[in-house]
């Protein structure tokens, strides 16, 4: 039954409907009826805030979910994601270091630095999980979360010492209310990376079958792995910088899709992107409505829903092992 709902066309229609709703939810009332004669104020709100916010949600939700999917395929572990590998924490530390050491540099330079650090962090995580043979794959995300927390503590320590707690905490938790035109456009950079990810869907799937399997088919295994990790690092850094942390998103969305549509990225990568966007959009709209006229930040919303689903996954795993 539910199986049938996981179709690209249904998902896209759902996303469009939610996007339209998102345009009309907020403190300043704008209803669809007003569209024909918008006041100056309403026009500003739509152009400066609501539209950027909706676009940011779609890009961030889609690209972060695809990151998770790619990471899970390449590591052959369903529990790996930008959150559970610590990639996000490295990105945040990178931005903080960039702010401390070259505050006047162009945003792109800072981004590049943050991406490099996320990539290094992810590679470190990969090394650890390859060296240590874990008895149960559940340990893999736990190690990653621990590593992430260490990195995160370093970031907090540094920011306390330099009195930049303010700027750090805005990256602590994802928040779309800070998205206004002029600040979110760098997110567009993740679109080409997302497209590269889509083009490599087949090769990621083969690489996920193992090094020997790939070599037999003439696939350059190391290159495909590196491309995949590069895409993930850049996208994660971009999202962390513009929106903030969206914990567990890259973990739960690909897992839900995998249950219903399998593990061939050719079939699942677009669906994962769209479902990721839907999920974030839904959480954001709810966050705007629950304590109206105030907002619950998206990071908190997703954190609560996401960690809950993550726990269910772990318990299911433990049960199936027992």
């Amino acid at each position, binding site marked *: 039954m539910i199986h049938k709902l996981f179709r690209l066309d249904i998902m896209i229609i759902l996303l469009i409907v939610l996007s339209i709703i998102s345009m009309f939810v907020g403190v300043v009332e704008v209803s669809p009826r007003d569209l024909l004669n918008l006041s100056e104020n309403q026009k500003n709100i739509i152009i400066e805030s609501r539209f950027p916010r909706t676009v940011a949600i779609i890009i961030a939700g889609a690209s972060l979910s695809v990151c998770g999917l790619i990471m899970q395929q390449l590591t052959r572990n369903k529990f790996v994601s930008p959150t559970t590998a610590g990639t996000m924490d490295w990105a945040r530390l990178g931005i903080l270091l960039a702010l401390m050491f070259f505050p006047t540099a162009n945003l792109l330079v800072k981004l590049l630095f943050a991406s490099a650090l996320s990539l290094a962090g992810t590679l470190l995580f990969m090394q650890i999980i390859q060296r240590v043979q874990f008895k149960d794959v559940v340990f893999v995300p736990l190690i990653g979360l621990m590593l992430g927390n260490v990195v995160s503590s370093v970031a907090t320590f540094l920011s306390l010492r330099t009195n930049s707690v303010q700027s750090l905490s805005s990256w602590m938790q994802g928040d779309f209310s800070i998205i206004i035109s002029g600040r979110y456009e760098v997110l567009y950079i993740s679109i080409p990376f997302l497209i590269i990810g889509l083009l490599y*869907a*087949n*090769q990621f*799937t*083969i690489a*996920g*079958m*193992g090094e*020997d*399997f790939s*070599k*037999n*088919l*003439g*696939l*350059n295994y190391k290159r495909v792995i590196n491309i995949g990790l590069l895409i993930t690092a850049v996208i994660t850094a971009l999202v962390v910088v513009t929106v903030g942390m969206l914990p567990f998103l890259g973990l739960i969305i690909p897992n839900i899709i*995998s249950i219903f549509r*399998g*593990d*061939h990225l*050719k079939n699942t990568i677009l669906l994962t992107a769209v479902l990721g966007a839907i999920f974030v959009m839904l959480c954001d709209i709810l966050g705007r409505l629950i304590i109206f006229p105030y907002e619950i930040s998206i990071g908190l919303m997703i954190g609560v829903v996401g960690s809950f689903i993550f726990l269910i996954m772990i318990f299911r795993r433990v049960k199936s092992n027992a």
Partner: protein
Amino acid sequence: MIDLKSISKIYGQKKVVNDVSVSIAKGKVTSFIGPNGAGKSTLLSMVTRLLDQDSGDVLLEGENILQAPSDKLAKKIAILKQSNNLDLKITVRELISFGRFPYSRGRLTQKDHEIIDEAISYMELEQFEERYIDELSGGQRQRVYIAMTIAQDTEYIFLDEPLNNLDMKHSVQIMQILRRLVRERNKTIIIVIHDINFASCYSDNIVAMKDGEVVISGSKDDVIRKEILEDIYEMDINIECIYGQQICVYFDEHQDASVDDFIEDQAQVQIRA
């Protein structure tokens, strides 16, 4: 023709493959036999460039295999490794389609689909086509992997213990399919096999290995001999001619007695401990 020239592989102190030189004839079924740990899998991995040798060369039709571009090589040789435990939700047809990757890089053409269909019917997998591989039995999955290797449509096909997990009917079916591939499409098949009677009945040539070295390599009649096999496996083996096939009989007549002895010994060891 594939020539192995003084191939060696060392792990730590141990020479797992020691100075092996063998030629593999084109258009034939060549079986590698020998006890566990003889180095057969390691040798196969080196011949198919999955593993780097410590010394020696592999020549594929005169050319060094490590110098060939890997995408071209993937259309020339295919290998199915001994263990393929994947718990991915990929359908049978999707997995077999990977065999076409060297040709189409993932964008399957009409011709690719025809070849995939053919491989599916060769292995009689029609009824499983849309099932996920993680829902199949070990033997069914093994047949899917072999189908993928057939879809890869290479001149040389290496199979490391392909009869693992297979019942008698499917073991015979696979050996017949391999013979058919040689007969109809002039493929060259290299296979590691444990059951020496399968090796004896279905191969043209046999390479026998022990302790990392080649003991003998030749036509099956050269190798399926009492003295040779007894030396390799360190047990009594008798060879009978049945329906024109050389069949090895290696069941000890006094087997029951020796098993009893063994159990008795074990019991005593336990009592002492």
